[in-house]
Structure formats: C-alpha cells, structure tokens
C-alpha cells in the first residue's frame, strides 16, 4: 500500500491538493471562519479525483499488479493523509494564536478542541458521501461532489453559527476548563471519522468491483 500511496502523491495528486492542505495555516488569520479550512480539506481531494479522471489514473492503476479494491483503498488513504496533514499543519498555528491573538476569533469558532472535533465530522460526512457516490461509476466526480459538499457545508455553518449563541459560548473558548468540556467532541469526532472511513472503504470497494472500466 505504500507504493500505491506513493503513486497517488507522485502521479495522481493535483498540485491544488498540496495548496489546499497547506491552508490549515489559515487558523492564524485574526478574524476568519475557520470552518472553511475543513471545506478546503474536502476541495483538495475532490480536485485530485477530477484530475485523476482526466489523466486516466484509474485505468493506469487497474493495469498494475494490484487488486481492484486496492485502487479504492489508496484513494481513501489519500483523503485521510491530506486531511490529517492539514490538521497537523494547522495545530502549531492554533496554539500560537492563543498567545498572539488572545481576544479570540470574532468571525466564528475559535481553533479549539471542539473545532477539531467538528472538523473530523465535516471531513467524514464529505468523504463518506463523495467516495461512495464516486465509486458507483468511477467518473461522475461532479455529482458526487455536489451531493457531499452540501451536507459538509451545512455542518460547517452549524458549527460557526452555534458559537454565537450565549448558551454555546463554551464552544468558542480556549480556557482550560472549557477545553476539558469540549474534549468529548474531539473524541467523538475522531471515533466517528475512523468508523466512517472504514465503512466508506468497504462500501466504495464493493461498488467499484461492479464498475466496468
């Protein structure tokens, strides 16, 4: 599978995937809806899938000495790799902003534990719908994207709006006791993401097996 991931990065990935992944840094912008970072984390992989269709990536891969389901596994892993890298890139900036921008983010949610918990959920919703829809045909990327990005954006807006209600002020905080209160959201996010990705792989692989290339 390492070779397949190497192939994904060296041949399949569109340059935008790397740029959108780097946008994890946006959490250092003083006032910005940080939920957009996760949307960029969905856009990058989508553009790569579109690019893959134009470069006949799946045909090339299908002729390599690999199983048909490995093609799906590699794509799922590429999504995970890009999104986890994006989170890792954003982390130092999220920590830094607590010190250099102590007044918080007036535009929306603060880059805190709840934010990352929601982020995992946004990624998971997008990946599940996009990949399982895409691998029904292995070419209809646009339709899969539309179906996936709408609920993912809805989750993002929900997160951004929620913190403006006084009742949910604790979600917008970086204070220690609020962070403790937020930690279950992060745990739920990570568990949800893991389960959804495993499920996404199984469903997508089964669908792709039936596709005639």
């Amino acid at each position: 599978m390492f070779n397949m991931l190497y192939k994904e990065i060296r041949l399949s990935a569109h340059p935008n995937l790397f740029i959108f992944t780097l946008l994890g840094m946006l959490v250092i912008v003083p006032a910005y809806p940080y939920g957009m970072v996760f949307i960029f984390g969905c856009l990058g992989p989508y553009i790569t899938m579109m690019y893959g269709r134009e470069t006949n990536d799946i045909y090339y891969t299908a002729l390599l000495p690999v199983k048909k389901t490995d093609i799906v596994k590699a794509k799922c892993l590429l999504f995970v790799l890009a999104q986890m890298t994006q989170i890792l890139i954003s982390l130092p900036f999220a920590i830094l902003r607590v010190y250099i921008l102590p007044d918080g983010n007036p535009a929306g949610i603060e880059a805190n534990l709840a934010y990352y918990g929601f982020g995992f959920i946004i990624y998971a919703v997008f990946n599940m719908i996009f990949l399982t829809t895409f691998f029904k045909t292995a070419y209809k990327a646009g339709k899969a994207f539309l179906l996936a990005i709408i609920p993912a954006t809805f989750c993002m807006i929900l997160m951004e709006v929620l913190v403006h209600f006084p009742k949910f002020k604790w979600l917008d905080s970086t204070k220690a006791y609020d962070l403790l209160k937020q930690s279950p959201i992060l745990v739920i996010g990570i568990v949800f993401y893991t389960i959804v990705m495993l499920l996404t792989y199984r469903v997508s692989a089964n669908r792709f097996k039936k596709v005639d290339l």
Partner: protein
Amino acid sequence: MIILKVDNLSKKYPGFLLDDISFSISEGKIMGLIGKNGAGKSTTLKGMLNLVNRDGGMVEMFGMDFFKHEEEIKQQLGVVLGGIDFYNHKRLSDITAVTKRFYNNWDDDAYENYMDVFSLNPNKKVKELSSGMKVKYMLTLALSHNAKLLILDEPTSGLDPVARDDLLTLFRQLVEKKNITVLFSTHIITDLEKCADYITYIKDGKLLKSAEKDEFIDSFQYLREPDENTRLSLEDIMIRTERREYNV
C-alpha cells in the same frame, strides 16, 4: 505450451452481447484479434483482464486462473490500451519511477536499453510524444518488467504506415528473440498479413473463427464468387463477411 486460454467469455451490456468467446495462444506466437469497430474486441480484452466484469467464462494465463491470481499474473503481463493516455502532463521519468516499484522483476538496464533503442527521452512529457512513441513507451514499461505476454488493444490504430510497419516489425522481433507471446486487436487487416501467426475473428460479439493464419484464410475461401480464380485475401474475407445491404 499454452500461455493464454480464454474459455466461453461472455459479457452482457444493454444492446450488446459478447457471446462465449474462446481461443488460446501458444508461447512465442502472435495472435491478431480482428473485427470491425464495435464488434467486441476491446470488451473481450477488458473482460479477460477483469477491467469489465464478465458474465461468464474462464481466463487462464501461464496456466493459472486469471481471476484468482490476478496480481501474480500481472507481474508477467504487459498491457497497452489503445487511445488511453495516462498522465499527459507528467514526464516519462516520473511515470517510470512509480511503475517500477510495483514489479518484482523490474530491470533497470533493460529499461535504459529500450528507452535508448526507441529514442525515448525520459524528460519528455507524455503529451509531447507521438502516438507511435506512446505505444513504444508503454511497451518499454512492459518489457522492463520482463513481461512474457503482451496484450495490446489497437496498438497500431492512428499510426502512419511507417510507424505501423515499425511497430509490427518490433513485435516479430520480440517474439523471435525474446520468446514473448503477443495478443493484439486491430481492424487494420494488413497488420495481420505482416505479423500474425494466428487470427481470431469476432463479429457482432460472436466468435467467427480462431485458427492459424493459413488455415483461417483457407476456411473462408467459400466466399469466392463462382467465376473467381484468385485466393481471397484477409481483407476480402473481412469485407465480404461484414458486407451489408442498406435498404434506402
């Protein structure tokens, strides 16, 4: 030794049926798969390679069931799909760097040698290659992992007569010097006259005949008109078999 054996391969599409295709190729031979456009040649090749899901039939390569030993068999297999270019904007060296990682038998010296013999520049991008050069690059990849069987879908279509002749001569050399077995589909009959040992003819999704070239030609001589004395060529056979009357 039989290198490739296809038994009753079937595939049903809405409006098209590939019906019980069977043939086999011995080691070191070239088989041409012919038929007009849309006859089912590509579907046959894709069905054999599990790129499309077959509705029935068996495929054996190197004595193994292809569908059970797909990864193992593909290590010894080279495939060129006509008209499909991979990664147009990538350099050949990038594609090679990735491809070689997947093959246990990759031979760097052989790769350098074929790149040199075919005058392929590794720094060129795929889109900068002519159609003939693209086929040669794909063949280079196949030969560098010591493929024993080449399956080529319309490798000569879109090539000028010189490039076509060049490629067909190369196939013959590969068979004679390296004992490689080749299955290639084509709708260009002169390709077969020059290069094939065996011919398999598919018409409207059905196998019409699969035989050694001379036997194949002999078996269609009944198509001669009563006043014809000359032997029918492959082209005559195909045209007469496919000829239709239009009621317009």
